[in-house]
């Protein structure tokens, strides 16, 4: 560029190159146009300052190119001399202070969206890279959905009692998943989850852009898109992807609503001789947050644990409104949203019998035995990077509001320090909710998924942190590269490990299909995947399978036997036609009991042991068949 400007550069020597590049890259500054009027524009584009060859460093500039001063009187090169053409009607237009604008522009929007599309493509690719057969929860929800469809639309009795132990309503996601499954199988259901997670990333980008700016939003979307929970849930057919999407949609609607509310300035009151002016909303605009209430309530219906994140969503609304509408209106809008959600959830609870399931799966969940250090380490591995970036973003954003590098620009009404601190603390702190609750319960079940809910909210602050790490004018791109590579590597490896943690049933199902006959009674762990896969072939249905978690067996004396007694009696009586066991290095007590009973009773023989390897160990599936009558005692 400097040589392109010929005489100007040669004569003036030292040029603040970074800002000049910015001028070329960012906007229609005249510096991009070449000789002629553009030459002058380029000079003006450097902040409108005349060059001082030996003066002090300008604090606004970021990079200086040192050129040795010319000795003697500079002679213009013959080839660069030209006569300036002047016209009588020609006039120099208004020259902006900077070569680019902090205000939104179409070009910036489309460039950002193109980068977002690239991020979404990477997210989709990394999610689709994961391969495994149906996890027990996936299989359970899909076949429960088929059962619920039969129950709701065809009057078939519901034998499953899914509403008593599911962690979300069995008539919402499972029904949707079953419908999609009947169209395209498990692959389609997982693709639906991918769509949900891509949409969640898109919404995260959008509301982060509204809260901060495009660069922060892209950083937030990028760091969220490659986290292990996002990649995992993008290929996992459970409630979680839909719940995260609905939470993201709630947050987006609320942040968006604050921007569209029309404000009317008016007299608020008279205090003595002083007239105070306040903000009034346009008629009916107080109710706009109610648009998000059904979405938030639906998120809770889809997955009860989503309620944990509604306070964050509400505070986000209050903070966003506070910045523009003041504290009173912000609290009013927050109260409206909260009231709407509470009313909807109250109606939901009053018309269903899910309270027991909510208690058993969410609020009064059974305590586990996983050690606290182990769980803390898992949390650190899976969300530590994003959380650390969010903490950094919170601290730096609290210290300084400015997010752009427009020289000399000061936001006329930027948020205050307390507002920035509260926003950062709330969003970042949300990442700790699920880990803290599960560490309290000492149960690591699904922690790798649940951690993703909080990361959605912490991601905007992580975006701020990453933006600040990179610095103005991309001063430290190596920081973004290092963090990006680390995030990508961790996300890819951890998502693959978590996706390979359950054994593939690729070879188990054909073996079972050889042995399972319609009407046969089976005992199984796992039983969800066999029920899902084999019921598609018409070989069985969920009513014919008993899990290792619950049995109510009516023995020969007519007594109802449950638990260990029930399993022993049923096996001694040869009640099951076959048994499937997952025998890993650390089998559970019930598996050991069932296996021991089959050995001592002599009613069953091991027909096949199918070895498997998972990402964390080895084991084998065992298929036990009841011995024929000639073999029996």
């Amino acid at each position, binding site marked *: 560029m400097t040589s392109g400007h010929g005489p100007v550069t040669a004569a003036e020597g030292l040029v603040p190159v970074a800002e000049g590049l910015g001028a070329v890259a960012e906007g229609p500054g005249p510096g991009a146009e070449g000789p002629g009027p553009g030459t002058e524009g380029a000079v003006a584009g450097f902040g409108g300052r005349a060059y001082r060859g030996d003066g002090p460093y300008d604090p606004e500039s970021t990079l200086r190119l040192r050129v040795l001063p010319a000795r003697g009187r500079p002679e213009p090169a013959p080839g660069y001399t030209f006569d300036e053409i002047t016209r009588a009607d020609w006039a120099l237009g208004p020259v902006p202070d900077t070569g680019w604008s902090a205000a939104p522009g179409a070009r910036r929007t489309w460039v950002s969206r193109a980068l977002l599309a*690239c991020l979404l*493509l990477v997210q*989709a*690719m*990394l999610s*689709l*890279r*994961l*391969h*495994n057969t149906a996890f027990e929860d996936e299989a359970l929800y899909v076949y429960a959905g088929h059962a619920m469809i039969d129950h709701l639309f065809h009057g078939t009795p519901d034998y499953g009692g899914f509403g008593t132990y599911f962690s979300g309503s069995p008539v919402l996601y499972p029904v949707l998943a079953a419908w999609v499954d009947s169209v395209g199988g498990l692959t389609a259901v997982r693709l639906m989850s991918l769509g949900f997670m891509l949409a969640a990333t898109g919404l995260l980008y959008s509301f982060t852009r509204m809260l901060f700016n495009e660069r922060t939003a892209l950083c937030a979307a990028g760091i969220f898109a490659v986290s292990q929970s996002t990649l995992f849930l993008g290929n996992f057919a459970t409630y979680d992807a839909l719940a995260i999407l609905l939470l993201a949609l709630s947050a987006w609607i609320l942040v968006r609503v604050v921007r569209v509310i029309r404000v009317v300035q008016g007299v608020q009151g008279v205090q003595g001789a002083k007239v105070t002016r306040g903000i009034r909303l346009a008629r009916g605009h107080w109710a706009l947050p109610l648009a998000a209430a059904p979405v938030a309530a639906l998120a809770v219906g889809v997955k009860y644990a989503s309620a944990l994140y509604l306070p964050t969503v509400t505070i986000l609304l209050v903070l966003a409104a506070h910045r523009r509408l003041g504290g009173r209106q912000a609290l009013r809008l927050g109260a409206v949203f909260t009231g709407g959600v509470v009313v909807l959830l109250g109606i939901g609870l009053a018309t269903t019998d899910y309270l027991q399931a909510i208690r058993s799966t969410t609020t009064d969940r059974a305590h586990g035995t996983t050690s606290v250090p182990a769980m803390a380490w898992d949390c650190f591995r899976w969300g530590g990077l994003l959380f650390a970036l969010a903490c950094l973003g919170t601290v730096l954003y609290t210290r300084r509001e400015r997010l752009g590098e427009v020289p000399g620009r000061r936001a006329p009404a930027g948020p205050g320090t307390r507002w920035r601190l509260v926003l950062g603390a709330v969003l970042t702190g949300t990442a700790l909710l699920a880990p803290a609750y599960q560490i309290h319960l000492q149960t690591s079940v699904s922690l790798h998924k649940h951690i993703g809910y909080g990361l959605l909210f912490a991601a905007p602050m992580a975006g701020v942190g990453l933006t600040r790490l990179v610095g103005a004018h991309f001063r430290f791109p190596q920081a973004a590269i290092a963090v990006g590579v680390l995030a990508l590597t961790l996300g890819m*490896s951890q*998502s*693959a*490990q*978590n*996706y*390979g*943690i359950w054994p593939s049933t*690729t*070879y188990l199902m*054909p*073996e079972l299909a050889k042995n399972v006959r319609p009407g046969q009674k089976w005992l199984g762990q796992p039983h969800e995947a066999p029920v899902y896969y084999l019921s598609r072939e018409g070989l069985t249905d969920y009513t014919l399978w008993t899990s290792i978690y619950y049995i109510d067996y009516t023995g020969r004396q007519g007594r109802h036997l449950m638990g260990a007694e029930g399993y022993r009696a049923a096996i001694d009586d040869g009640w099951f036609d076959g048994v499937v066991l997952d*025998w890993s290095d650390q089998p559970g007590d019930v598996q050991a009991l069932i296996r021991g009973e*089959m*050995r*001592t*009773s*002599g009613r*069953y*023989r*091991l*027909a*096949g*042991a*199918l*070895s498997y*390897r*998972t*990402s964390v160990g080895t*084991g*084998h599936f*065992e298929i036990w*068949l009841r*011995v*024929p009558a*000639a*073999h*029996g*005692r």
Partner: protein
Amino acid sequence: MSGVGRRAALGWALAAAATSAAGCTPSRTAPIGAGGQGPSVRTAPYVPFDVTWMIRPAHGRKYLGAALPGVRVTPGVLDAWAGKAGKAPNLLSYRLSWGDGFPAGETLAVWRRRMLPYLVWDPWKPTLRAIAEGRADAYVRRTALTVRDLNVPLAVSFAQEMNGDWYPWGVRKTAPEEFVGAWRRVHDLFQDTGVSNVIWVWSPTVAGPAASARLRSYYPGDAYVDWLGLVGYYTGTGPHTFDTLFAPVIRKARAFTRNPVLVAGTAAASGARKPAEIRDLLRAVTTRRDVVGFVWSDLDKETDWRIDSSPEALAAFRRGVADPHFGFDVRHP
């Protein structure tokens, strides 16, 4: 957008799509969970050989077994015996001393010659008590892994003739509880390792007064045993018919199990009665539904037990095993 711009955009889009497709395609070395098998090579079979149909072959088919001296799978030895018998055996018995490495190559060669490998596992050292207490677990696990990874059917007879008094694991030196404990230990370790391609043969002897006296106390249980592998020989001085040699022990065993019977080791001493004894044996094996076959110990030891010890004996054997029930293809149910 100009033509060049459109072409560039199309090129980038195609490159992105191709990269995406390549990234989503699993490779063998990809991590488990990303469609691959990880960096280490898998040795275990994906689907184990199903031996359940071999325990009780359909349509009354019978095993024609042989125990031959020396290197059993040497083509000349087997072919010579098959030539003499008029039919190739479909079960071959051989021995493994406790502590020795599992003969994987020989087992595979036996199976490839369409014979069910039948392994007589002799626990010379350590004692059955030590095995029951788990002091040989590492060796058992190692053997089990080899058997699992080999993935061919295998009949295993552990501590054969435990109710006799001529082996260290016999009645003189070992209590029934020790035998049962050792048997269950070995069996359970095999199952814990994921072995399901073994047919477990509980193999008492029918000889001697103590043979049937305490038979039940040596029985590990139906969940641990697939075949009743009786060992008994037509000797010069003992019983001369199946009904007097094997049937009493079978009757005793029927009090606690209904598992099929394999005559796991038999032969007739050379002499004038040998052809008749061979005819009696083959008739009983053919006609009894609960007997799935027999193993002929074709040895010249103490006396000449071989099928061709005399032309009459050989003719009786050839005529007997010519029955189509004998010598079915063990590779197909």
